[in-house]
């Protein structure tokens, strides 16, 4: 097997190959480390890579702590920080024979939609080095897209797994809020943060979710049992499945090219036997505004712990976006403004959650675009924070509602990947994974590889 054939293998295929002794664990690790050495200088996907590694090589977003491996959260304030313990997800992966081959670049404290808020330079999009990979799980998505790891972990607060997965042409799963313990994930906005897989196929994402989910006693919101496949799935077609299409996800701001690709994907779901129904999510337009108030409020609280005493540097080390959100959140929570901003946004959050509950009375999954555009030019939106925030319009509502979302490659516009977003009912990852898998098997988008 040639080196590039080996690194193209999916997680499921890699497990099988190791079991059947088609290649050794050593061979696998050497090949991946060689590829990282070759490609990472161009892509800046990794902030740290292992000199020696074993097990199945996984890339871990640098906001998830790893024992004795530097973890920065993409911030200067954590430069030189060496975690004394492993996050629960890392412990669980190690038990399954997974090794940390590297820590991946990300927006500072996972705050950003392009990867450009990293204090360690931006990761590049493997399909076009002049474009952003999306964010905040920028390096994890770039590493999977360029076959520099078998799979990666990211975190998703307002779209940070789904959006970069979409822009990089790989699979990304944001589990339901509470599905995976965040113990050892550096907190950004605690009523949203979730850890999830970024993978080459839907089956790989399902496998990783099985490994990492379930309570550990250290995350008060993670109480449901771990994810296990219960049903038989759909097999080759989607007969009996109702797919809801929200008209609010196809309005102003959606790029025409992206719309065409997503509508073709919906047609494909229909050809595969699904029934398409129109649904409405009437409060979608308030999503970004509500999210930025609640998220920034939680950020200002979570980032108050960086005092330069127990760990990390002093507060002048925060980057621009971190400071902006701390300021916005501090303002929203301050005396005299709390009711107008934080409490109001929390009420609007209820409306958005109810939108989904009503829509799911009519359908099993909701489908639409992940991102209103394909990957944009590096530097294009950095001067205007609000424009950057607006690029998360289709991922934020699911984050507000706490429901699971999957991004699956569904085509290209100008040689840049487009992702299809499949949203499910709370704690029903199984259905969205099944739908994603049937779609994936009926198409070949996920097999396309960037030429780097």
């Amino acid at each position, binding site marked *: 097997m040639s080196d590039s054939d080996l690194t193209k293998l999916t997680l499921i295929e890699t497990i099988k190959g190791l079991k059947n002794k088609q290649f050794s664990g050593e061979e696998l690790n050497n090949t991946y480390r060689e590829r990282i050495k070759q490609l990472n200088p161009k892509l800046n996907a990794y902030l740290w890579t292992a000199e020696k590694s074993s097990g199945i090589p996984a890339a871990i977003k640098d906001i998830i702590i790893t024992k004795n491996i530097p973890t920065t959260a993409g911030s200067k304030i954590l430069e030189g920080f060496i975690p004394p*313990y492993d996050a629960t997800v890392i412990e669980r992966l190690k038990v399954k024979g997974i090794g940390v081959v590297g820590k991946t670049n990300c927006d500072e404290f996972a705050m950003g939609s392009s990867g450009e808020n990293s204090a360690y330079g931006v990761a590049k999009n493997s399909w076009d080095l002049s474009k952003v990979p999306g964010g905040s799980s920028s390096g994890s998505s770039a590493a999977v897209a360029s076959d520099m790891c078998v799979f990666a972990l990211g975190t998703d607060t307002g779209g940070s797994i789904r959006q970069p997965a979409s822009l990089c042409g790989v699979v990304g799963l944001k589990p339901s809020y*509470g599905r995976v313990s965040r113990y050892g994930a550096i907190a950004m906005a605690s009523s949203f943060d979730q850890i999830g897989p970024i993978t080459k196929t839907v089956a790989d994402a399902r496998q990783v979710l099985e490994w990492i989910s379930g309570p550990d006693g250290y995350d008060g919101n993670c109480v449901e049992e771990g994810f296990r496949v219960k049903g038989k799935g759909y097999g080759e077609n989607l007969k009996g499945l109702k797919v809801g299409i929200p008209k609010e996800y196809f309005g102003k701001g959606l790029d025409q090219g992206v719309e065409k690709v997503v509508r073709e994907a919906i047609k494909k779901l229909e050809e595969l036997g699904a029934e398409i129904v129109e649904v409405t999510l009437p409060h979608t337009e308030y999503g970004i505004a509500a999210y930025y108030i609640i998220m920034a409020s939680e950020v200002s609280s979570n980032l108050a712990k960086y005092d330069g005493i127990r760990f990390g540097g002093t*507060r002048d080390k925060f980057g621009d976006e971190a400071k902006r959100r701390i300021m916005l959140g501090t303002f929203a929570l301050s005396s005299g403004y709390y009711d107008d901003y934080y409490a109001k946004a*929390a009420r609007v959050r209820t*409306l958005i959650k109810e939108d989904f509950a009503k829509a799911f009375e009519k359908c099993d999954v909701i489908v639409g675009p992940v991102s209103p555009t394909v990957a944009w030019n590096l530097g294009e939106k950095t001067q205007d924070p609000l424009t950057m*925030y607006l690029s998360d319009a289709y991922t934020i509502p699911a984050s507000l509602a706490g429901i699971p979302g999957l991004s699956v490659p569904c085509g290209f516009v100008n040689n840049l990947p487009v992702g299809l977003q499949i949203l499910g009912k709370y704690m029903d990852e199984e259905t969205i994974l099944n739908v994603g898998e049937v779609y994936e098997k009926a198409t070949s988008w996920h097999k396309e590889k960037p030429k780097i």
Partner: protein
Amino acid sequence: MKLTADQVKKVAKLANLPLSDEEIEKYSGQLSKILDYIDQLNSADTSEVEPTFNVTGLSNVLREDKVGESLPQEEALQNASQVKDGFFVTKGVFEE
């Protein structure tokens, strides 16, 4: 809503963020623009709506009050900027 430079300074003090004059100027403009956008929340009718602070609806999730494993002192202190006699060194809270 417009956030003046003075308001930005006050918020920065509450947030314990050291900001330069240029930053205060910049954030005053940027935050005002963001707050203008956020003002659209006022057109959503929430008079009959309870707030959602946590989608799981869980509260007071407690564990048994039993001592479990914890980090050895040395490891707990390994990332501190200053350590003395097995403690974190901090600035004095009260003036001498």
